[in-house]
């Protein structure tokens, strides 16, 4: 299974996302922002970072990149797309997911091991989880506060489009504790926390079993392999 990982100038976690794809059993394919060719990938990850410096608005300039034209089109046709952190911001700026992400309410960058509740398992990126499962995924962002107007929020909740919610502690002031969203079709998922940082024992979040042994993030990448196989 070929999973594309997009690099924009300023992308930081592209190599981490490629590693995550590899550890899950997929084949990572590097995609370049200026290239409209998706190289026949079966799914795409928009990794974290500060694309184009996040100047103007986070993800705003990246959303205009040539590769995004192709991704937006392919997503309309059902291509699985996962946006992580800055990738989530790009998805929102591309209108593949609704709402917006603003500066954390604490006004600082936050890096922490974050508990999440999986709210929806009917997507290309969450089918390995069980509904209501608690997972721990590193979170690291400066502008992760999810906002949307009342009507959009109502629709998101009503249609079950909230994919992940923060548990115990809302780190950035996100409305309704929203950590991640899915689209109606379930092929596009975006979230602020970083599943690619919880895929390898020794380098993930701490668990009660051992230091840095958390690998809950692998489920995202295994999910998409399932969904591609089943598609």
């Amino acid at each position, binding site marked *: 299974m070929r999973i594309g990982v997009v690099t924009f100038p300023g992308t930081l976690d592209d190599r981490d996302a490629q590693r995550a794809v590899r550890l899950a059993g997929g084949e990572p394919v590097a995609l370049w922002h200026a290239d409209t060719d998706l190289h026949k990938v079966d799914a795409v990850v928009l990794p974290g970072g500060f694309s*184009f410096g996040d*100047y103007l608005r986070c993800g705003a*300039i990246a959303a*205009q990149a040539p590769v995004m034209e192709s991704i937006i089109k392919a997503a309309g046709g059902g291509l699985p797309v996962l946006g992580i952190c800055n990738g989530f911001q790009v998805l929102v700026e591309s209108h593949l997911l609704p709402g917006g992400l603003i500066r954390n309410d604490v006004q600082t960058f936050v890096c922490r091991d974050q508990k999440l509740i999986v709210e929806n398992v009917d997507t290309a990126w969450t089918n390995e989880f069980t509904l209501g499962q608690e997972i721990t995924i590193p979170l690291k962002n400066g502008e992760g506060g999810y906002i949307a107007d009342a009507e959009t929020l109502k629709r998101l909740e009503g249609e079950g489009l909230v994919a992940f919610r923060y548990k115990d502690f809302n780190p950035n002031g996100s409305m309704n504790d929203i950590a991640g969203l899915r689209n109606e079709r379930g092929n596009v998922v975006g979230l602020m926390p970083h599943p690619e940082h919880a895929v390898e024992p020794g380098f993930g979040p701490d668990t009660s079993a051992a230091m840095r042994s958390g690998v809950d993030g692998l489920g995202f990448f295994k999910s998409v392999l399932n969904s591609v196989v089943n598609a």
Partner: protein
Amino acid sequence: MPKIIVEVMPKADLLDPAGKAVNNALHRNGHSEITNVRIGKRIELHFDRAVTDDDIAAATKIGEDFLSNAVIEDVVSVTVEN
């Protein structure tokens, strides 16, 4: 609603990374006629009464002492909308 608008810009001879990034993006999108972009801040100070000359003087001082960092930014205008 009466308000005083303070505009703050990065100092002319200092780098403005945000402006540069947006300028480059505009060029990529074909707007080569735009030669430079600089990004500043617009700060609105709201009042529930008419703005006085004293308010403007105070706002100017607030703009210079607090709303801007004189080392890297300039207050370029203080205007009133009554």
